[in-house]
């Protein structure tokens, strides 16, 4: 399955996913390029999952996990943050902008934050894409 130009959001089923669900129910809208992958915990997302998304053509990858101290699995969001940082470093090593992979923390009842965050990612990905094209 091609993911060219998409924004892949790994959403924790305890925070990012309910927030996305609520945003949909409220009709708040989200970027057209957004592809949501529901995960049992942000800590389930490994570096290889993020890299594979880029291999398939994603322009940005986001991990949306629980707020600090509120992880359903205690340390999943902390692990996810570390993995996002590692993935960012691996991308930089091969000349790809490390800011293309980001982590956000939000609560399940924050649909507006979900929309803001995903719009922010989309804008950043577009700007990074333009920078890459100009090189």
């Amino acid at each position: 399955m091609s993911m060219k130009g998409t924004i892949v959001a790994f959403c924790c089923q305890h925070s990012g996913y309910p927030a996305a669900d609520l945003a949909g129910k409220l009709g708040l809208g989200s970027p057209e390029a957004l592809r949501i992958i529901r995960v049992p915990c942000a800590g389930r997302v490994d570096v290889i999952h993020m890299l594979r998304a880029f291999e398939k053509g994603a322009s940005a990858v986001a991990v949306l996990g629980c707020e600090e101290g509120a992880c359903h699995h205690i340390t999943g969001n902390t692990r996810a943050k570390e993995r996002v940082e590692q993935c960012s470093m691996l991308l930089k090593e091969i000349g790809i902008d490390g800011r293309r992979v980001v982590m956000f923390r939000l609560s399940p009842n924050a649909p507006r934050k979900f929309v803001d965050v995903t719009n922010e990612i989309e804008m950043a990905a577009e700007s990074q894409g333009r920078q890459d094209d100009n090189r």
Partner: protein
Amino acid sequence: MIIAERKPIAEITRALAPYKNVLVAGCGTCVAVCWAGGEKEVGVLASQLRLARGAEGSQISIMETTVERQCEKEMVTDLKDRMAEVDAVLSLACGAGVQTMAEIFDDKPVFPAVNTTFIGRPEREGMWVEMCGACGDCYLDRTGGVCPVVRCAKGLMNGPCGGTRKGGKCEIDPDKDCAWVLIYRRLEKQNRLDLMREYCAPKNFRAVKRPGRVQAGKA
């Protein structure tokens, strides 16, 4: 166990530049434990190589595999069928594994993806420290189980050097414990401090002839 570190990606991509079909082979033993060359690292490195080639506008076909012990000929020989499809091999095993791979498949270039660094143990999550220099003349029995060959920055056989910092730290690296302070304290605990006064003859570096060879059952 044997500790290794992944080489810089630029060095790896430079070595693989002429090749289009590559087997990335990990090892499931020591290098897997030290996060340098196991199945997970094979996947990440292969993905990085594909992305790097994609960014250059060219392609690379990568086959991924992990051998349980790449230093054993029998286990490496099992890869025979896959070898016909590749131009080169990128091995994430230690030096012994890379050489085994290169010997069995001597018609293919085999490139190391890691630098084999030392024999050590995990100190904390993600950190390994050197414990043994494989000198072939072990005298841990006289030093309370602390090896001064690798744990003393100067490799002194009759220490301490006199430069020990307050708190028992090494004068060369204040983050490291002075090996001879550790030895003293260990021997003190065992009531064997008399060993500190025993002169230790210079290290016998001929104990292991290079290349080393050990035949089981022959003392």
